[in-house]
């Protein structure tokens, strides 16, 4: 599969997700979400591929594009990928938190799981992309590289995680929370701004890692202590008479996720010819399984245990999201009990 085919595939996926969002969340959220994700993606990728003044001075661009396509195409192509990843992560995370009664309909747990979904997606895509030559990194971060397959490094995964969380946090807080009526709501734009400033002024290595670590701690603490409720703007939903069409629209993100998995499996097995790369798909598979309402949690745990036994330490990335889910599930139950005993 070449870059052009990838572009058509991701564009088609994006259109399907826009249709889903329009029907499920209304025009306003759909328009703003995809517009801002486009701006965020373009801004990031233009800097990545073409270099910003600061990156030219201090650091090489993180990865180079090996093909003969114009750079503008590469930037747009990757941006479409980001838009797709952002929406899928939001959707899957929402479905996962729906299965946690205490955290259902809460913003911060959804945000956290969105980051995990994107990190899982990045692992699967990076492993394939590096091996088939869609792009290549100019450096390699050795930390925890034994736990990952396909020459993927942790830096890529954490970069995808934090970029998503920093994009979704202001969007969800400004558009989908109680703050959306506050005159000062735009202050939430300072969340991604702080990260950018850390990278520009203090550097992309240790200061960035320290900032991200502090942000992670804060996110987890807030997620547990004050998860914040979703409050969507009202919209007139379109009534679809045909039940099949309504079901189909409902299932569109899942169809896109499965298609991504299928394409990656095809590329890994047929084009690259390396079956070990399939291990990189496991975290995403487990997260999709967690998001399915009809699938029992015990089945997911059993599957996770089998993976752990079969693949050993390379199955660790797949185990983490399930452990997080279990932790939140137990915590939610404890907090529920605490609340019930506090209110006589």
């Amino acid at each position, binding site marked *: 599969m070449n870059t052009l085919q990838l572009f058509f595939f991701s564009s088609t996926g994006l259109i399907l997700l826009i249709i889903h969002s329009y029907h499920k969340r209304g025009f306003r959220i759909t328009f703003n979400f995809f*517009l801002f994700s486009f701006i965020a993606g373009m801004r990031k990728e233009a800097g990545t591929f073409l270099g910003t003044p600061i990156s030219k001075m201090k650091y090489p661009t993180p990865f180079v594009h090996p093909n003969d396509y114009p750079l503008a195409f590469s930037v747009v192509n990757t941006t479409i990928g980001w838009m797709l990843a952002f929406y899928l992560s939001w959707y899957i995370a929402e479905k996962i938190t729906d299965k946690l009664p205490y955290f259902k309909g809460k913003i911060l747990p959804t945000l956290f799981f969105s980051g995990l979904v994107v990190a899982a997606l990045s692992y699967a895509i990076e492993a394939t992309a590096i091996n088939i030559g869609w792009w290549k990194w100019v450096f390699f971060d050795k930390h925890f590289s034994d736990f990952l397959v396909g020459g993927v490094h942790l830096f890529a995964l954490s970069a995808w995680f934090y970029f998503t969380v920093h994009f979704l946090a202001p969007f969800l807080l400004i558009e989908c929370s109680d703050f959306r009526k506050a005159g000062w709501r735009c202050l939430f734009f300072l969340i991604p701004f702080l990260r950018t400033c850390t990278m520009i*002024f203090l550097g992309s290595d240790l200061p960035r890692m320290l900032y991200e670590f502090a942000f992670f701690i804060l996110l987890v603490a807030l997620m547990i202590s004050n998860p914040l409720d979703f409050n969507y703007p009202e919209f007139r939903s379109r009534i679809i008479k045909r039940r099949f069409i309504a079901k189909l629209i409902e299932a569109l993100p899942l169809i896109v996720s499965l298609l991504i998995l299928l394409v990656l499996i095809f590329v890994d097995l047929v084009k690259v010819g390396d079956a070990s790369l399939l291990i990189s798909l496991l975290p995403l598979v487990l997260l999709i399984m967690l998001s399915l309402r009809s699938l029992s949690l015990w089945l997911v745990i059993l599957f996770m245990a089998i993976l752990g036994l079969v693949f050993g330490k390379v199955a660790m990335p797949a185990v983490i999201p399930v452990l997080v889910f279990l932790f939140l599930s137990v915590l939610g139950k404890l907090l529920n009990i605490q609340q019930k005993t506090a209110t006589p």
Partner: protein
Amino acid sequence: MSTLIFFNFCISGLILLIINSYFKKGLALTVNFFLFIFMLIFINAGTQSLRLINLPVNTSLSNIFHATFSTAIWVLVFGLAWHIGEKTIARIAYFKARIFTLILYAAITVAALVYAVEITAANIGWLGIPQAINAGSCLGLPDITRRLFYFSVYFFAAYFLISVSEYKKKEWKTIFFVLPFLHTWVIQFFGKGYPQIIEESIVLLALFLLAFVSPLRFDYSGVSLPKAQGRIKPRLIELLPMLVAITLIFILSFIDLITIQNPRLLISLLPICFLVLLSIPRIPLIFVILLNITCLLIFKKLAIFAALPVLLLAIFQLAGQLQFNKKDHSTS
């Protein structure tokens, strides 16, 4: 005058502008305006593209300080430009409260302020610029004037169209958010040569056309204003931006005359002085035009930059008058 003193003035001026904006335009508009301009300029100053000086990026602390210094100046400039532009176009009844006319005048004010600050900064060697590489007594238009002019056009256009135009109630209003990024992407994808010149020419032409023909007006409906209580006098709040502008001109004149001891540099203050004069409704336009002609006779081509905003306003006045006459004829 040391950098720190000027920095302190900028911060104080900014606080006064924020107070004025809060009482005149409300919390939401004030927060959004100063927040977005701060974020855009701070990042650009961090990557040196809007930095007042060019320093090698070596220490993080000095980098942060220099970017903060540039940001304080340029945010102040943008705040002043909105106020001065608004007051200037308020002179012409026909164009009063028209968004694109204000964008044009606010951008011209930004350019005039940047010109005055940059010429002084380059000649005083602020923040340790070696004197040898300074512009000396050169009064040529620095490149940053042009860059900040276009930057302000995109910024003001996006901000006004989203926050205070009739589009503010539309669900798709955030599409205007793309405007400031368009300029960056054109440069990034197509380069700084002809593509940038073509893009900037198109923007300038479109802005002039829209300034004359677009009827789009400011819509402040739904904005809740706080009431000035106690000892805060509304008249004083009203005067704050003018006070800041005049103090800025005074400081720059002081530096040019006393510290640098080069009175020729005062010519760089002419454009902003004329814009301030135009923004004071009590001063008749004919008086400003006469003063401008006198400056042109004395300083010749060096006073052309100062003549442009006055000439433009005279044309707007004439166009407004013609439109009024046309309307009178059609109704009678």
